[in-house]
């Protein structure tokens, strides 16, 4: 039940949302479409769902050409950022909706809905209205609703974007565990790289309507295809014209091969780690060192140090996915 997008193009007026985008999402995987706002990832998701019609390109779902199919017939489960709860229906009726449309017998519906509500821990709330639920609960209901009709793929559009930080973290783990149990091909859109790295098997980085890189979280972090991916997925700083991860910088008391002279402008202790702000030839940079190192080296403001990247990053050998 994989998903394939071939050469998808979509513009809104003069704004190009997707520029010849192709992705291949393996069956049963949990994939993140990651990128900045307005980059095209939601558009791609909606094209896959059939909620947007592309100007060019093809969509295949489970090996079938789905490009001409309406959203009703694609067998996709879709979860919206703002839940799209049916406000006038109870939680039970919301989850049952897809099954009622398909005219399933009442007891079958009741059984399936109860199962799903237990799965998402909302069985106590079956008779409540969505307005009586919290945001996190509404989203769990939306997930149950989408799963009820046994979709071939699950598509989630910034599912946790409208929730606050604590709930977001909880639901992230919960989504991962759910996927481990249910194994439906799942694609979710997010602009939060931490979320993508924590949850997804594979990440597709999309920016300005183009795919920047595809790969596992560690691949994208350690071997980014370009500056954009590097900067988006983790902290970066510039040393000697190169983009480097602050925790990949060696701070030395004496000059060594390949090191540059720098002045410590500020030291901030953040729990276990220490952030060292530097000035190198008038340019600002920063390095992340451990407390142990900071104290053993006696780092202090105003001091002169020498810095160099621990391993050269540059551009990796892997091509963009």
């Amino acid at each position: 039940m994989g998903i394939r997008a071939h050469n998808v193009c979509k513009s809104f007026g003069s704004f190009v949302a997707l520029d010849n985008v192709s992705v291949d999402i393996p069956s049963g995987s949990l994939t993140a479409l990651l990128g900045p706002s307005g980059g095209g990832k939601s558009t791609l998701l909606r094209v896959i769902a059939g909620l947007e019609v592309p100007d060019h390109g093809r969509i295949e779902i489970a090996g079938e050409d789905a490009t001409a199919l309406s959203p009703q017939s694609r067998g996709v489960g879709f979860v919206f950022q703002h839940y799209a709860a049916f406000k006038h229906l109870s939680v039970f009726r919301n989850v049952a909706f897809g099954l009622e449309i398909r005219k399933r017998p009442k007891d079958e519906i009741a059984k399936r809905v109860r199962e799903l509500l237990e799965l998402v821990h909302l069985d106590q709330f079956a008779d409540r209205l969505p307005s009586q639920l919290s945001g996190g609960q509404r989203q769990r209901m939306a997930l149950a609703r989408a799963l009820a009709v046994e979709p071939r793929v699950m598509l989630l559009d910034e599912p946790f974007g409208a929730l606050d930080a604590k709930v977001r973290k909880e639901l992230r783990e919960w989504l991962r565990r759910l996927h481990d149990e249910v194994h439906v091909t799942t694609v979710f859109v997010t602009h939060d790289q931490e979320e993508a790295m924590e949850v997804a098997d594979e990440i597709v980085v999309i920016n300005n309507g183009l795919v920047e890189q595809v790969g596992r979280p560690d691949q994208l972090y350690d071997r980014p295809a370009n500056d954009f991916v590097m900067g988006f997925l983790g902290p970066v700083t510039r040393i000697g014209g190169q983009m480097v991860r602050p925790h990949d910088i060696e701070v030395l008391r004496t000059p060594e091969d390949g090191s540059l002279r720098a002045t410590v402008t500020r030291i901030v202790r953040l729990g276990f780690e220490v952030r060292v702000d530097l000035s190198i030839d008038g340019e600002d940079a920063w390095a992340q060192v451990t407390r142990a190192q900071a104290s053993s080296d006696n780092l202090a403001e105003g001091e002169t140090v020498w810095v160099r990247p621990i391993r050269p990053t540059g551009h990796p050998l892997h091509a963009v996915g």
Partner: protein
Amino acid sequence: MGRGPGLGVGVATLWLSLVVLIPLAAVTLRAGENGWGGFWAAVTAPEAASALRLTLGAAVVVSIVDVVFGTLVAWVLVRDHFRGERVVEVLIDLPFALPTIVAGLVLLSLYGATSPLGIHLAYTRAGVVMALLFVTLPFVVRTVQPVLAELDPEMEDAAASLGAGRITTFRRIVLPNLLPAISAGAALSFARAISEFGSTVLISGNLPFKTQVAAVHIFGQIETDNVTGAAAVSTVLLVVALLVLVALDLLSRWGAKRA
């Protein structure tokens, strides 16, 4: 997103054309039947001109009174709390719900020849104005009420903390924020007042040159088969109404900018 709106637009346009557009176009065409000269003559004929003058004049007066009293009523409904408030709230919609001819009858019985109060406004221009005040009452009230209710009370608190007394606060803080809503209500009042027919028929006695409003005049012209004349005066009313609609649109944009 599936089929486009084409069919729907087509049907809507067809329906609108049959019911609204073509008939209105027919009025303007008929008005111009005798050319620009004929149109002008029909509109400036003594009775027609008098009716138009009365109508426009009365509408202006009524709009002004509506602005003052409408704002006042809205203020009292929003800011004041008293027993029977809900009843008054419901009452404001009476002119929307009551047929205009019944409104006319009702006013005539209190302020006409058989008035128990001794006030006799039948066959007078004051009677016409009163009828128009009745039917236009809700407009300013209903446009101002929600804006007044949404007004940030902290603005007035800030003004008070800066030394502004009640009148000053009203004049400089509240009123300017109500202005778009008041103007919109006034425009609606005006448009309604120039078109009004039913409520004026009884109390005005329909005296040409004295209490005959434009709509009544047009009616008379239709009945006496001077359809072209009726169409001419109708066209004037239509043009004025259109101008008011444009003004309303501009006012709503002005109001939106201030929100």
